[in-house]
């Protein structure tokens, strides 16, 4: 048995016991204490635009049908027949008015209500013997949305999603609310990697330090002009509410010039100006920071980048949303979606999709090298020696725990939370502190 009190105290001082990235005992705790309680992203309302549209998504082993009912409401229904437990929906997406269990034929409307039992009268004595009223597929214990992003929690007493996200919602708007129409989501690409789920979440939350090394090749081939070592350390990381992320420092200029620099056409810039708050506009226009990668605890990540997609100087921004869905302590299913502003011009949507494919996802030239690192780390973390190694995750802290760089004052960073310029592992520590809080709560 691991000495958990000691493990969590090491994590909190930024020295990470290496085995937490590949440990059955830790994973059992995570199932209950993290994924049994936290808000987990499962999809976006734009994936189920019409009544009857559904997608099937999992929270670890639990399968949910995320369906829009005839009343227009989106629900998440536990995909298990009330009778003998078959999955009532075995497709991954589609449109259906009903879900009929293939085993004995119990059928449910797309809002979850049980409407049909074969031989109801003969076998159950009809409505008097077994009233169908009130019988529904189990709904997700908690379901909530923000900007159309659908989250569910297995905890019926989960706090409201907006409280859970806290000030991170401010930053989530850059990715998911560039216009009042919000985003449309396409995908996901799904693939399994032999890596622990926490590594991707930590990387996206704050690892600006890896960019110049891991992603050297994409600069060399002209895909990306940003990740020069000097460039990346001029950016800021921020932590706010239940998430944090990284930014790039933009060249001097007005709001419009800076948004044009990352490739947004004027028509989208005008809409952003009408959609975002003064503080949201100030982070870009006044302070010169543009959001890049980010994570929300536990396993949702976002990324915004602006590569070249053709042999020209033009850059095209793209947005990806992904979850690191744990399969086991050493295996993760990545679900990676492409997101784009629903009101964006069609040409922009096409080229932004191209930019996404070239950079992230199953074929992305950034992501390919990231995953290689994470698989290697996970494999090594499973051995006996990893139990004797504390990984140094203290970047940005002096020996006596004072910080190397002071937080940016509000006059230089208009966003909420705490932001600092330069390399640091503040956000990775924040994320693992949340993780330790969850694991300790009822351990």
């Amino acid at each position, binding site marked *: 048995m691991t000495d958990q009190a000691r493990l969590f105290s090491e994590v909190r001082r930024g020295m990470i016991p290496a085995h937490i990235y590949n440990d059955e005992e830790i994973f059992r705790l995570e199932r209950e204490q993290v994924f049994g309680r936290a808000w987990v992203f499962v999809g976006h309302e734009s994936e189920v635009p019409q009544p009857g549209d559904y997608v099937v998504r999992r929270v670890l082993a639990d399968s949910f049908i995320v369906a829009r009912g005839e009343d227009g409401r989106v629900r998440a229904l536990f995909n298990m027949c009330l009778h003998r437990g078959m999955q009532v929906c075995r497709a991954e997406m589609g449109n259906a008015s009903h879900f009929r269990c293939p085993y004995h034929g119990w059928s449910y409307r797309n809002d979850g209500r049980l409407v049909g039992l074969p031989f109801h009268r003969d076998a159950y004595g009809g409505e008097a013997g077994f009233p169908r009223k009130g019988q529904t597929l189990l709904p997700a214990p908690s379901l909530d949305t923000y900007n159309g992003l659908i989250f569910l929690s297995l905890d019926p007493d989960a706090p409201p999603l907006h409280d859970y996200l806290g000030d991170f919602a401010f930053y989530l708007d850059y990715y998911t609310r560039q216009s009042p129409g919000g985003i449309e989501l396409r995908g996901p690409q799904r693939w399994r990697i032999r890596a622990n789920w926490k590594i991707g979440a930590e990387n996206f939350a704050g690892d600006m330090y890896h960019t110049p090394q891991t992603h050297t090749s994409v600069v060399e081939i002209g895909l990306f002009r940003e990740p020069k070592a000097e460039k990346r350390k001029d950016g800021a990381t921020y932590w706010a509410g239940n998430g944090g992320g990284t930014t790039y420092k933009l060249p001097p200029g007005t709001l419009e010039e800076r948004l044009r620099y990352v490739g947004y056409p004027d028509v989208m810039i005008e809409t952003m100006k009408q959609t975002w708050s003064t503080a949201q506009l100030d982070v870009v226009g006044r302070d010169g920071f543009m959001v890049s990668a980010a994570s929300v605890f536990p396993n949702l990540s976002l990324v915004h980048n602006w590569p070249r997609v053709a042999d020209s100087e033009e850059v095209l921004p793209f947005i990806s949303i992904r979850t690191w869905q744990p399969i086991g302590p050493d295996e993760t299913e990545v679900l990676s979606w492409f997101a784009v502003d629903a009101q964006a011009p069609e040409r922009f949507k096409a080229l932004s999709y191209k930019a996404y494919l070239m950079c992230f996802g199953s074929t992305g030239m950034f992501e390919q*090298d990231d995953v290689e690192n994470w698989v290697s780390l996970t494999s090594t973390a499973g051995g006996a020696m990893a139990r004797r190694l504390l990984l140094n995750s203290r970047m940005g802290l002096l020996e006596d725990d004072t910080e190397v760089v002071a937080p940016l004052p509000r006059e230089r960073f208009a966003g909420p939370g705490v932001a600092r310029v330069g390399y640091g592992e503040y956000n990775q520590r924040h994320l693992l502190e949340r993780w330790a809080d969850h694991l300790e709560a009822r351990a």
Partner: protein
Amino acid sequence: MSAHSAPSRLGGHASPIQRSGGSLPFSDERHLQAHRWLVDEAYLLDAQRYDAWLELLTADIHYLMPVRVTTALGAGYDCAPGMAHFDEDKYSLSRRAARFCTQHAWTEDPPSRLRHHLTNVRTFATADPDHLVVDSGVLLYRSRGDVREPALISAGREDLLRRMPGGTGWLLARRTILVDDAVLRTQNLAIFL
């Protein structure tokens, strides 16, 4: 297999030429040429000789690998709408190839051991004698390092081959890769099919 280039948002530039009639006899000279072309290509891909591979692609190539999804029988589609793994033109393929030629494409350094097993080749004539449509199955075995489990990727492909100017050989003008998994079991697609 219907053409996927048309619904792809990035496939507008691709040749729309389709097969006509049934598969050609295995003794047909065109089939022999197409089959040989695929075998030669498989050896280039195994050896990761991507500079030579790029030379086999036309300037207007569309290289598409849709995301497969599990849908009900009768749904009418089994690929994710508007999403692919690869949706490439010559430029983006050239960037991918160029990346592997840098010293910093860590995911393939050390390189994977690759074997593209090619099978079930069928060749079809088209209305244009300078174009052939070729179906094939491919099973890629990918092994990395010493302790990792190898990855298998099984796919069907529909290729459009175009006769080289001067008539001496063939180039790939369009490829659709229908992968047989909805969830890929490999760490990335730093390979080509």
